Protein backbone atom coordinates (compact mmCIF):
# COMPACT_ATOMS: atom_id res chain seq x y z
CA UNK A 1 0.00 0.00 0.00
CA UNK A 2 1.25 3.44 -0.84
CA UNK A 3 1.88 5.09 2.49
CA UNK A 4 1.49 8.56 1.06
CA UNK A 5 -1.91 7.76 -0.28
CA UNK A 6 -2.85 6.27 3.00
CA UNK A 7 -1.61 9.32 4.84
CA UNK A 8 -3.52 11.72 2.63
CA UNK A 9 -6.65 9.70 3.05
CA UNK A 10 -6.22 9.62 6.76
CA UNK A 11 -5.44 13.32 6.98
CA UNK A 12 -8.57 14.15 5.08
CA UNK A 13 -10.53 11.80 7.23
CA UNK A 14 -8.92 13.04 10.38
CA UNK A 15 -9.41 16.63 9.36
CA UNK A 16 -13.09 16.23 8.78
CA UNK A 17 -13.52 14.18 11.86
CA UNK A 18 -11.45 16.44 13.99
CA UNK A 19 -13.14 19.70 13.16
CA UNK A 20 -16.59 19.41 14.55
CA UNK A 21 -15.86 16.50 16.83
CA UNK A 22 -13.29 18.58 18.64
CA UNK A 23 -15.51 21.61 19.13
CA UNK A 24 -18.64 19.72 19.95
CA UNK A 25 -17.29 18.17 23.12
CA UNK A 26 -16.01 21.33 24.85
CA UNK A 27 -19.17 23.22 23.94
CA UNK A 28 -21.27 20.45 25.43
CA UNK A 29 -19.08 20.36 28.52
CA UNK A 30 -19.31 24.11 29.00
CA UNK A 31 -23.07 23.93 28.58
CA UNK A 32 -23.34 21.18 31.16
CA UNK A 33 -21.18 23.07 33.64
CA UNK A 34 -23.25 26.19 33.11
CA UNK A 35 -26.38 24.15 33.88
CA UNK A 36 -24.77 22.88 37.06
CA UNK A 37 -23.85 26.39 38.15
CA UNK A 38 -27.40 27.53 37.46
CA UNK A 39 -28.58 24.64 39.54
CA UNK A 40 -26.29 25.67 42.35
CA UNK A 41 -27.55 29.23 42.27
CA UNK A 42 -31.16 28.11 42.24
CA UNK A 43 -30.59 25.79 45.14
CA UNK A 44 -28.90 28.23 47.42
CA UNK A 45 -29.86 27.45 51.02
CA UNK A 46 -33.32 28.83 51.58
CA UNK A 47 -33.16 32.28 53.17
CA UNK A 48 -34.30 32.62 56.72
CA UNK A 49 -38.00 33.19 56.83
CA UNK A 50 -38.82 36.89 56.67
CA UNK A 51 -39.90 38.51 59.94
CA UNK A 52 -43.65 38.54 60.27
CA UNK A 53 -45.64 41.55 59.28
CA UNK A 54 -47.56 43.63 61.76
CA UNK A 55 -46.59 44.97 65.12
CA UNK A 56 -44.43 43.02 67.52
CA UNK A 57 -46.43 41.06 70.07
CA UNK A 58 -47.80 42.98 73.00
CA UNK A 59 -46.36 40.64 75.61
CA UNK A 60 -42.80 39.31 75.79
CA UNK A 61 -42.68 36.18 73.72
CA UNK A 62 -40.73 33.31 75.19
CA UNK A 63 -37.91 31.82 73.07
CA UNK A 64 -39.30 28.37 73.66
CA UNK A 65 -42.44 29.36 71.82
CA UNK A 66 -40.88 29.74 68.39
CA UNK A 67 -38.53 26.81 68.36
CA UNK A 68 -39.09 23.20 68.92
CA UNK A 69 -42.56 21.92 69.69
CA UNK A 70 -42.70 18.27 70.52
CA UNK A 71 -46.42 17.72 70.57
CA UNK A 72 -48.61 18.68 67.65
CA UNK A 73 -51.03 20.66 69.74
CA UNK A 74 -49.39 22.72 72.40
CA UNK A 75 -47.24 25.51 70.90
CA UNK A 76 -49.59 28.45 70.84
CA UNK A 77 -51.05 27.76 74.22
CA UNK A 78 -47.56 27.47 75.65
CA UNK A 79 -46.91 31.03 74.51
CA UNK A 80 -50.18 32.03 76.03
CA UNK A 81 -49.34 30.34 79.32
CA UNK A 82 -46.06 32.13 79.48
CA UNK A 83 -47.78 35.38 78.67
CA UNK A 84 -50.40 34.83 81.31
CA UNK A 85 -47.81 34.06 83.94
CA UNK A 86 -45.21 36.59 82.89
CA UNK A 87 -44.56 39.69 84.99
CA UNK A 88 -46.02 41.87 82.23
CA UNK A 89 -49.50 40.64 83.07
CA UNK A 90 -50.50 42.42 86.29
CA UNK A 91 -51.66 40.22 89.12
CA UNK A 92 -55.27 41.32 89.25
CA UNK A 93 -57.05 40.84 92.47
CA UNK A 94 -60.16 38.90 91.57
CA UNK A 95 -63.26 39.09 93.60
CA UNK A 96 -63.50 35.38 93.97
CA UNK A 97 -60.99 32.62 94.33
CA UNK A 98 -61.70 28.99 93.71
CA UNK A 99 -59.52 26.18 94.91
CA UNK A 100 -59.52 22.58 93.90
CA UNK A 101 -61.42 20.49 96.38
CA UNK A 102 -61.57 17.05 94.82
CA UNK A 103 -61.07 15.04 91.67
CA UNK A 104 -63.66 12.61 90.37
CA UNK A 105 -62.99 9.79 87.98
CA UNK A 106 -59.30 10.42 87.61
CA UNK A 107 -56.60 7.77 87.25
CA UNK A 108 -56.47 7.22 91.02
CA UNK A 109 -60.19 6.74 91.35
CA UNK A 110 -61.99 3.38 91.33
CA UNK A 111 -64.49 4.96 88.95
CA UNK A 112 -61.78 5.92 86.51
CA UNK A 113 -62.93 6.96 83.06
CA UNK A 114 -60.78 4.92 80.73
CA UNK A 115 -61.91 5.89 77.25
CA UNK A 116 -63.88 9.09 77.13
CA UNK A 117 -65.52 11.86 79.09
CA UNK A 118 -68.13 13.78 77.16
CA UNK A 119 -70.57 15.62 79.40
CA UNK A 120 -71.61 16.51 82.92
CA UNK A 121 -74.80 17.74 84.60
CA UNK A 122 -76.14 18.32 88.10
CA UNK A 123 -79.38 16.69 89.11
CA UNK A 124 -81.65 16.44 92.10
CA UNK A 125 -79.90 16.65 95.47
CA UNK A 126 -76.65 17.78 93.86
CA UNK A 127 -76.13 14.40 92.31
CA UNK A 128 -73.52 14.47 89.59
CA UNK A 129 -74.39 12.89 86.26
CA UNK A 130 -71.42 12.17 84.00
CA UNK A 131 -71.38 10.87 80.44
CA UNK A 132 -68.23 8.91 79.81
CA UNK A 133 -66.90 5.49 78.75
CA UNK A 134 -70.19 4.96 76.85
CA UNK A 135 -72.03 5.06 80.17
CA UNK A 136 -74.07 7.43 82.25
CA UNK A 137 -72.73 7.36 85.79
CA UNK A 138 -74.39 9.02 88.73
CA UNK A 139 -72.42 10.12 91.78
CA UNK A 140 -73.65 11.50 95.06
CA UNK A 141 -72.30 14.81 96.43
CA UNK A 142 -69.58 12.86 98.26
CA UNK A 143 -68.43 11.51 94.90
CA UNK A 144 -69.51 7.93 95.51
CA UNK A 145 -70.99 6.09 92.55
CA UNK A 146 -74.69 5.51 92.92
CA UNK A 147 -75.78 4.11 89.58
CA UNK A 148 -74.61 3.58 86.03
CA UNK A 149 -76.12 2.38 82.79
CA UNK A 150 -75.16 2.04 79.21
CA UNK A 151 -75.48 5.18 77.10
CA UNK A 152 -77.09 5.06 73.65
CA UNK A 153 -74.94 4.74 70.56
CA UNK A 154 -72.98 7.89 69.73
CA UNK A 155 -74.09 9.83 72.80
CA UNK A 156 -72.70 13.35 72.75
CA UNK A 157 -74.26 15.23 75.69
CA UNK A 158 -76.67 14.95 78.55
CA UNK A 159 -79.08 17.04 80.58
CA UNK A 160 -81.09 16.31 83.72
CA UNK A 161 -84.59 17.42 84.59
CA UNK A 162 -85.86 18.30 88.06
CA UNK A 163 -87.84 15.03 88.06
CA UNK A 164 -84.67 13.06 87.72
CA UNK A 165 -85.17 12.20 84.08
CA UNK A 166 -81.98 12.05 82.08
CA UNK A 167 -81.94 13.35 78.53
CA UNK A 168 -79.10 12.04 76.40
CA UNK A 169 -78.23 13.60 73.05
CA UNK A 170 -77.21 11.42 70.10
CA UNK A 171 -76.93 12.28 66.39
CA UNK A 172 -80.35 13.55 65.38
CA UNK A 173 -82.07 12.28 68.50
CA UNK A 174 -82.66 12.83 72.21
CA UNK A 175 -83.18 9.71 74.30
CA UNK A 176 -85.01 10.01 77.62
CA UNK A 177 -84.25 7.79 80.62
CA UNK A 178 -85.97 7.70 83.98
CA UNK A 179 -84.18 8.02 87.30
CA UNK A 180 -83.51 4.30 87.44
CA UNK A 181 -81.89 4.24 84.03
CA UNK A 182 -84.65 2.73 81.94
CA UNK A 183 -85.38 4.37 78.62
CA UNK A 184 -88.88 5.78 78.63
CA UNK A 185 -89.02 7.99 75.57
CA UNK A 186 -87.08 9.46 72.76
CA UNK A 187 -87.60 11.95 69.99
CA UNK A 188 -85.80 13.09 66.93
CA UNK A 189 -84.51 16.59 66.64
CA UNK A 190 -83.12 18.63 63.84
CA UNK A 191 -84.20 18.99 60.24
CA UNK A 192 -84.83 16.10 57.87
CA UNK A 193 -81.74 16.63 55.76
CA UNK A 194 -79.69 18.07 58.57
CA UNK A 195 -79.94 15.84 61.66
CA UNK A 196 -79.07 17.69 64.83
CA UNK A 197 -75.64 17.49 66.39
CA UNK A 198 -76.76 17.68 70.01
CA UNK A 199 -73.93 19.26 71.96
CA UNK A 200 -75.92 20.36 75.02
CA UNK A 201 -79.30 19.72 76.61
CA UNK A 202 -80.92 21.76 79.33
CA UNK A 203 -84.34 21.37 80.90
CA UNK A 204 -86.45 24.28 82.03
CA UNK A 205 -89.85 23.35 83.37
CA UNK A 206 -91.72 21.68 80.56
CA UNK A 207 -89.25 22.78 77.91
CA UNK A 208 -86.30 20.79 76.74
CA UNK A 209 -83.69 22.99 75.12
CA UNK A 210 -81.51 21.16 72.64
CA UNK A 211 -78.35 22.85 71.33
CA UNK A 212 -78.08 21.84 67.68
CA UNK A 213 -74.55 22.57 66.51
CA UNK A 214 -75.27 21.37 62.98
CA UNK A 215 -77.93 23.99 62.35
CA UNK A 216 -76.24 26.31 64.86
CA UNK A 217 -79.46 26.99 66.72
CA UNK A 218 -81.21 26.09 69.96
CA UNK A 219 -84.35 24.03 69.57
CA UNK A 220 -87.16 24.04 72.08
CA UNK A 221 -89.03 20.79 72.50
CA UNK A 222 -91.92 19.81 74.71
CA UNK A 223 -91.67 16.81 76.97
CA UNK A 224 -93.21 14.70 74.28
CA UNK A 225 -90.59 15.90 71.84
CA UNK A 226 -92.83 18.18 69.85
CA UNK A 227 -90.87 21.14 68.50
CA UNK A 228 -91.92 24.42 70.08
CA UNK A 229 -89.67 26.94 68.51
CA UNK A 230 -86.17 28.14 68.04
CA UNK A 231 -83.90 30.30 70.12
CA UNK A 232 -81.01 32.18 68.59
CA UNK A 233 -82.26 32.79 65.10
CA UNK A 234 -83.17 36.40 65.70
CA UNK A 235 -79.71 37.68 64.99
CA UNK A 236 -77.92 39.22 62.05
CA UNK A 237 -76.78 35.89 60.64
CA UNK A 238 -79.85 33.96 61.75
CA UNK A 239 -77.80 31.50 63.75
CA UNK A 240 -74.77 31.22 65.95
CA UNK A 241 -71.32 31.25 64.41
CA UNK A 242 -69.64 28.03 65.51
CA UNK A 243 -66.31 27.40 63.80
CA UNK A 244 -65.58 24.69 66.34
CA UNK A 245 -68.93 22.99 65.55
CA UNK A 246 -70.08 22.98 69.17
CA UNK A 247 -72.73 24.95 71.09
CA UNK A 248 -73.22 25.02 74.86
CA UNK A 249 -76.23 26.44 76.66
CA UNK A 250 -77.51 27.11 80.16
CA UNK A 251 -80.82 28.32 81.56
CA UNK A 252 -81.25 30.31 84.74
CA UNK A 253 -84.20 30.20 87.11
CA UNK A 254 -85.91 33.08 85.34
CA UNK A 255 -85.91 31.29 82.02
CA UNK A 256 -83.13 33.31 80.41
CA UNK A 257 -81.15 31.16 77.99
CA UNK A 258 -77.39 31.65 77.87
CA UNK A 259 -75.53 30.42 74.80
CA UNK A 260 -71.91 30.40 73.65
CA UNK A 261 -71.48 32.20 70.35
CA UNK A 262 -67.93 30.99 69.87
CA UNK A 263 -67.20 32.57 66.50
CA UNK A 264 -68.07 35.96 67.89
CA UNK A 265 -66.36 35.37 71.23
CA UNK A 266 -69.52 36.21 73.09
CA UNK A 267 -71.91 34.82 75.66
CA UNK A 268 -75.39 35.72 74.40
CA UNK A 269 -78.65 35.74 76.31
CA UNK A 270 -82.11 35.06 74.95
CA UNK A 271 -85.63 34.81 76.17
CA UNK A 272 -87.37 31.46 75.77
CA UNK A 273 -89.45 32.79 72.90
CA UNK A 274 -86.26 33.68 71.05
CA UNK A 275 -86.03 37.40 71.73
CA UNK A 276 -82.40 38.50 72.07
CA UNK A 277 -81.62 39.99 75.46
CA UNK A 278 -77.95 40.82 75.56
CA UNK A 279 -74.38 39.67 75.21
CA UNK A 280 -70.95 40.14 76.67
CA UNK A 281 -67.40 39.20 75.84
CA UNK A 282 -64.93 39.92 73.09
CA UNK A 283 -61.79 38.55 71.51
CA UNK A 284 -58.47 39.38 73.10
CA UNK A 285 -55.22 37.61 73.77
CA UNK A 286 -53.92 39.73 76.65
CA UNK A 287 -56.67 40.85 79.01
CA UNK A 288 -57.89 37.97 81.17
CA UNK A 289 -61.56 38.87 80.71
CA UNK A 290 -61.29 38.45 76.95
CA UNK A 291 -61.72 35.18 75.13
CA UNK A 292 -58.67 33.92 73.28
CA UNK A 293 -58.17 32.24 69.96
CA UNK A 294 -60.55 31.71 67.09
CA UNK A 295 -63.61 30.37 68.87
CA UNK A 296 -64.28 30.72 72.60
CA UNK A 297 -65.86 30.22 75.10
CA UNK A 298 -66.58 26.59 74.32
CA UNK A 299 -68.54 25.73 77.46
CA UNK A 300 -70.93 27.42 79.81
CA UNK A 301 -72.70 26.95 83.13
CA UNK A 302 -74.56 29.11 85.66
CA UNK A 303 -74.03 29.41 89.41
CA UNK A 304 -76.97 29.46 91.76
CA UNK A 305 -76.39 33.18 92.36
CA UNK A 306 -76.67 33.93 88.67
CA UNK A 307 -73.03 34.22 87.72
CA UNK A 308 -71.81 32.84 84.43
CA UNK A 309 -69.06 30.21 84.35
CA UNK A 310 -67.24 29.84 81.01
CA UNK A 311 -64.74 27.29 79.76
CA UNK A 312 -62.12 28.09 77.12
CA UNK A 313 -59.76 26.14 74.91
CA UNK A 314 -56.32 27.05 73.58
CA UNK A 315 -55.63 28.47 77.02
CA UNK A 316 -57.61 25.86 78.94
CA UNK A 317 -59.20 27.81 81.76
CA UNK A 318 -62.49 28.43 83.48
CA UNK A 319 -63.69 31.93 84.26
CA UNK A 320 -66.56 33.29 86.29
CA UNK A 321 -68.35 36.43 85.06
CA UNK A 322 -71.08 38.69 86.22
CA UNK A 323 -73.87 38.69 83.61
CA UNK A 324 -72.85 42.23 82.70
CA UNK A 325 -69.41 40.96 81.74
CA UNK A 326 -67.26 41.75 84.77
CA UNK A 327 -64.67 39.09 85.42
CA UNK A 328 -64.96 37.64 88.90
CA UNK A 329 -62.60 34.67 89.00
CA UNK A 330 -60.14 32.68 86.91
CA UNK A 331 -59.41 28.99 87.40
CA UNK A 332 -56.10 28.83 85.66
CA UNK A 333 -54.73 26.65 82.89
CA UNK A 334 -52.51 24.72 85.27
CA UNK A 335 -55.49 22.58 86.25
CA UNK A 336 -56.32 21.38 82.77
CA UNK A 337 -54.61 19.64 79.89
CA UNK A 338 -53.50 22.27 77.35
CA UNK A 339 -54.84 20.25 74.42
CA UNK A 340 -58.46 20.27 75.63
CA UNK A 341 -60.99 21.39 73.08
CA UNK A 342 -63.77 21.36 75.68
CA UNK A 343 -64.13 21.76 79.42
CA UNK A 344 -67.60 20.57 80.31
CA UNK A 345 -69.03 22.55 83.20
CA UNK A 346 -71.68 22.16 85.86
CA UNK A 347 -72.33 24.01 89.11
CA UNK A 348 -74.10 22.49 92.10
CA UNK A 349 -76.38 24.23 94.54
CA UNK A 350 -73.49 25.07 96.88
CA UNK A 351 -71.69 26.92 94.10
CA UNK A 352 -69.05 24.27 93.58
CA UNK A 353 -67.82 24.26 89.99
CA UNK A 354 -67.33 20.87 88.40
CA UNK A 355 -65.05 21.01 85.36
CA UNK A 356 -64.67 17.87 83.23
CA UNK A 357 -61.33 17.57 81.42
CA UNK A 358 -61.93 15.19 78.46
CA UNK A 359 -58.24 14.68 77.73
CA UNK A 360 -57.22 13.65 81.21
CA UNK A 361 -60.70 12.18 81.70
CA UNK A 362 -61.24 13.56 85.14
CA UNK A 363 -63.72 15.89 86.78
CA UNK A 364 -62.22 18.53 89.00
CA UNK A 365 -64.33 20.04 91.74
CA UNK A 366 -63.59 23.62 92.69
CA UNK A 367 -65.09 25.26 95.72
CA UNK A 368 -65.33 28.92 96.52
CA UNK A 369 -62.82 30.20 99.05
CA UNK A 370 -64.21 32.22 101.91
CA UNK A 371 -63.17 35.00 102.32
CA UNK A 372 -61.61 35.86 98.94
CA UNK A 373 -57.89 36.64 99.06
CA UNK A 374 -56.12 39.29 97.02
CA UNK A 375 -53.99 38.33 94.10
CA UNK A 376 -53.49 34.74 95.00
CA UNK A 377 -54.48 32.16 92.54
CA UNK A 378 -53.97 28.48 93.19
Amino acid at each position, binding site marked *: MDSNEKNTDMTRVKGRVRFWRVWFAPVAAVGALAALVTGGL*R*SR*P*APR*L*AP*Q*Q*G*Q*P*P*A*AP*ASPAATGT*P*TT*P*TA*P*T*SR*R*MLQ*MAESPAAPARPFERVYTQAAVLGGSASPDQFRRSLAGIAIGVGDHIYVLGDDEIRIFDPLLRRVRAWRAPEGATSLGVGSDGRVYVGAPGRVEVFDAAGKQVAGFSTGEKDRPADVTAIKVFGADILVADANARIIRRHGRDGAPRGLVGNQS*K*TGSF*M*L*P*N*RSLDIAVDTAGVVYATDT*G*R*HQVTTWALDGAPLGKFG*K*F*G*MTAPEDF*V*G*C*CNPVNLALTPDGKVVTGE*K*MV*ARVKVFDPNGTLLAVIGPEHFD*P*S*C*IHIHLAVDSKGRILAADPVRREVKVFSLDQPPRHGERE
Partner: protein
Amino acid sequence: MIEKSTRRRFIEGSCRVLGLVTLGGTAGLLTDRASANAVYQVDPNKCKTCDLCRTSCVLSLSAVKAVNDFDKCGYCMLCPAYMDVMSKPDEKGVPTGKVCPQDALKRKVVGHVDADDPNNNYYEYGVDEALCTGCGKCVKACLPPAGNGSLRLEIRYSRCVECNECAIRIACPDSAIVRVSAPGMAPAKHDL
Protein backbone atom coordinates in the same frame (compact mmCIF):
# COMPACT_ATOMS: atom_id res chain seq x y z
CA MET B 1 -13.35 -14.58 10.38
CA ILE B 2 -12.79 -15.86 13.83
CA GLU B 3 -14.08 -19.30 14.39
CA LYS B 4 -14.80 -20.26 17.92
CA SER B 5 -14.68 -23.87 18.86
CA THR B 6 -18.02 -25.58 19.07
CA ARG B 7 -17.45 -26.26 22.73
CA ARG B 8 -16.89 -22.59 23.39
CA ARG B 9 -19.93 -21.68 21.38
CA PHE B 10 -21.98 -24.23 23.27
CA ILE B 11 -20.89 -22.87 26.62
CA GLU B 12 -21.57 -19.33 25.56
CA GLY B 13 -24.91 -20.32 24.13
CA SER B 14 -26.00 -22.07 27.28
CA CYS B 15 -24.84 -19.14 29.40
CA ARG B 16 -26.93 -16.90 27.23
CA VAL B 17 -29.98 -19.08 27.58
CA LEU B 18 -29.46 -19.45 31.31
CA GLY B 19 -29.09 -15.71 31.63
CA LEU B 20 -32.27 -15.05 29.68
CA VAL B 21 -34.17 -17.60 31.71
CA THR B 22 -32.96 -16.12 35.00
CA LEU B 23 -33.85 -12.63 33.91
CA GLY B 24 -37.22 -13.72 32.65
CA GLY B 25 -37.94 -15.72 35.77
CA THR B 26 -37.03 -12.93 38.17
CA ALA B 27 -38.95 -10.43 36.09
CA GLY B 28 -41.94 -12.72 36.18
CA LEU B 29 -41.70 -13.19 39.93
CA LEU B 30 -41.59 -9.46 40.48
CA THR B 31 -44.34 -8.76 37.97
CA ASP B 32 -46.51 -11.14 39.89
CA ARG B 33 -46.01 -9.00 42.95
CA ALA B 34 -46.01 -5.71 41.10
CA SER B 35 -48.61 -3.12 41.81
CA ALA B 36 -49.53 0.09 40.19
CA ASN B 37 -47.26 3.03 40.60
CA ALA B 38 -46.52 4.02 44.14
CA VAL B 39 -46.05 7.66 45.02
CA TYR B 40 -44.96 9.55 48.11
CA GLN B 41 -47.42 11.49 50.24
CA VAL B 42 -47.48 13.23 53.61
CA ASP B 43 -49.31 11.41 56.39
CA PRO B 44 -51.03 14.24 58.29
CA ASN B 45 -51.38 12.08 61.41
CA LYS B 46 -47.62 11.83 61.79
CA CYS B 47 -46.55 15.21 60.51
CA LYS B 48 -45.31 17.53 63.23
CA THR B 49 -44.92 20.57 60.92
CA CYS B 50 -41.22 21.05 61.40
CA ASP B 51 -40.20 23.15 58.32
CA LEU B 52 -38.01 20.39 56.85
CA CYS B 53 -40.44 19.94 53.97
CA ARG B 54 -39.45 23.37 52.80
CA THR B 55 -35.72 22.79 52.89
CA SER B 56 -35.27 19.11 52.05
CA CYS B 57 -37.09 18.85 48.72
CA VAL B 58 -34.74 18.50 45.76
CA LEU B 59 -36.62 21.30 44.02
CA SER B 60 -35.79 24.85 44.98
CA LEU B 61 -39.48 25.57 45.61
CA SER B 62 -40.65 22.56 47.54
CA ALA B 63 -43.35 20.33 46.08
CA VAL B 64 -45.00 20.23 49.51
CA LYS B 65 -47.77 22.77 49.90
CA ALA B 66 -50.36 23.50 52.55
CA VAL B 67 -53.91 22.63 51.58
CA ASN B 68 -57.15 23.48 53.36
CA ASP B 69 -59.80 20.82 53.79
CA PHE B 70 -62.86 22.98 53.32
CA ASP B 71 -65.25 20.57 54.97
CA LYS B 72 -63.29 20.82 58.21
CA CYS B 73 -62.47 24.50 58.07
CA GLY B 74 -64.36 26.74 60.50
CA TYR B 75 -64.32 29.74 58.16
CA CYS B 76 -63.46 31.83 61.22
CA MET B 77 -62.90 35.52 60.98
CA LEU B 78 -60.16 35.19 63.59
CA CYS B 79 -58.33 32.37 61.92
CA PRO B 80 -55.27 31.49 64.05
CA ALA B 81 -53.46 30.24 60.96
CA TYR B 82 -54.11 33.38 58.98
CA MET B 83 -53.42 36.03 61.57
CA ASP B 84 -50.93 35.90 64.38
CA VAL B 85 -53.31 36.14 67.31
CA MET B 86 -50.50 37.35 69.57
CA SER B 87 -49.75 40.37 67.41
CA LYS B 88 -50.97 43.86 68.15
CA PRO B 89 -54.65 44.34 67.29
CA ASP B 90 -56.00 47.25 65.31
CA GLU B 91 -58.79 49.55 66.52
CA LYS B 92 -61.44 46.97 65.71
CA GLY B 93 -59.62 44.38 67.77
CA VAL B 94 -58.42 42.31 64.81
CA PRO B 95 -54.74 41.27 65.07
CA THR B 96 -52.60 42.76 62.35
CA GLY B 97 -49.75 40.26 62.09
CA LYS B 98 -49.82 37.33 59.69
CA VAL B 99 -48.61 33.83 60.36
CA CYS B 100 -47.49 33.00 56.82
CA PRO B 101 -44.11 34.55 56.07
CA GLN B 102 -44.87 34.51 52.34
CA ASP B 103 -48.47 35.69 52.78
CA ALA B 104 -49.59 32.63 50.85
CA LEU B 105 -52.76 32.01 52.88
CA LYS B 106 -55.42 34.11 51.23
CA ARG B 107 -58.94 34.71 52.37
CA LYS B 108 -62.11 36.10 50.93
CA VAL B 109 -65.36 36.80 52.64
CA VAL B 110 -68.22 34.53 51.62
CA GLY B 111 -71.94 34.42 52.12
CA HIS B 112 -73.77 37.33 53.62
CA VAL B 113 -71.34 40.20 54.11
CA ASP B 114 -71.58 42.52 57.10
CA ALA B 115 -69.44 45.55 56.35
CA ASP B 116 -69.77 47.06 59.81
CA ASP B 117 -68.88 44.18 62.03
CA PRO B 118 -66.30 41.78 60.63
CA ASN B 119 -67.21 39.39 63.43
CA ASN B 120 -70.37 38.52 61.56
CA ASN B 121 -68.59 37.31 58.45
CA TYR B 122 -67.40 33.93 57.30
CA TYR B 123 -64.15 33.72 55.35
CA GLU B 124 -62.95 31.13 52.91
CA TYR B 125 -59.25 30.40 53.27
CA GLY B 126 -57.15 29.12 50.43
CA VAL B 127 -53.45 28.61 49.83
CA ASP B 128 -51.66 30.33 46.98
CA GLU B 129 -49.38 27.54 45.78
CA ALA B 130 -47.04 29.79 43.90
CA LEU B 131 -46.10 31.48 47.17
CA CYS B 132 -46.36 28.61 49.62
CA THR B 133 -43.01 27.13 50.58
CA GLY B 134 -44.31 24.24 52.64
CA CYS B 135 -42.91 25.54 55.92
CA GLY B 136 -45.98 24.38 57.84
CA LYS B 137 -46.44 27.41 60.09
CA CYS B 138 -50.09 27.74 59.18
CA VAL B 139 -50.63 24.01 59.64
CA LYS B 140 -49.12 24.18 63.09
CA ALA B 141 -51.24 27.18 64.03
CA CYS B 142 -54.43 25.48 62.85
CA LEU B 143 -53.87 22.36 64.95
CA PRO B 144 -56.38 21.78 67.75
CA PRO B 145 -57.07 23.22 70.26
CA ALA B 146 -56.38 26.51 68.53
CA GLY B 147 -58.12 25.59 65.28
CA ASN B 148 -60.01 22.75 63.63
CA GLY B 149 -56.97 21.16 62.03
CA SER B 150 -58.24 21.65 58.50
CA LEU B 151 -54.89 22.75 57.10
CA ARG B 152 -52.37 20.08 56.30
CA LEU B 153 -49.22 19.65 54.23
CA GLU B 154 -49.51 17.70 51.02
CA ILE B 155 -47.13 16.71 48.22
CA ARG B 156 -48.55 18.26 45.07
CA TYR B 157 -47.98 15.97 42.15
CA SER B 158 -48.19 18.78 39.67
CA ARG B 159 -44.80 19.82 41.05
CA CYS B 160 -43.22 16.67 42.46
CA VAL B 161 -40.62 15.10 40.17
CA GLU B 162 -41.25 11.67 41.72
CA CYS B 163 -37.75 10.79 42.79
CA ASN B 164 -37.06 7.15 43.40
CA GLU B 165 -36.33 8.01 47.01
CA CYS B 166 -37.94 11.14 48.36
CA ALA B 167 -35.34 13.42 49.93
CA ILE B 168 -37.90 14.80 52.37
CA ARG B 169 -38.61 11.26 53.51
CA ILE B 170 -34.97 10.83 54.41
CA ALA B 171 -34.96 14.07 56.35
CA CYS B 172 -38.31 13.75 58.10
CA PRO B 173 -37.78 12.92 61.78
CA ASP B 174 -41.35 11.69 62.23
CA SER B 175 -41.47 9.27 59.27
CA ALA B 176 -44.40 11.22 57.96
CA ILE B 177 -43.70 10.67 54.24
CA VAL B 178 -45.26 7.39 53.26
CA ARG B 179 -45.59 5.47 50.02
CA VAL B 180 -49.16 5.11 48.83
CA SER B 181 -50.39 3.61 45.60
CA ALA B 182 -51.32 6.12 42.96
CA PRO B 183 -53.35 8.30 42.65
CA GLY B 184 -51.83 9.10 45.98
CA MET B 185 -54.62 10.36 48.21
CA ALA B 186 -53.21 11.39 51.53
CA PRO B 187 -54.09 9.16 54.49
CA ALA B 188 -57.22 10.53 56.18
CA LYS B 189 -56.61 12.71 59.20
CA HIS B 190 -57.93 11.13 62.38
CA ASP B 191 -60.26 13.44 64.28
CA LEU B 192 -59.09 14.13 67.78
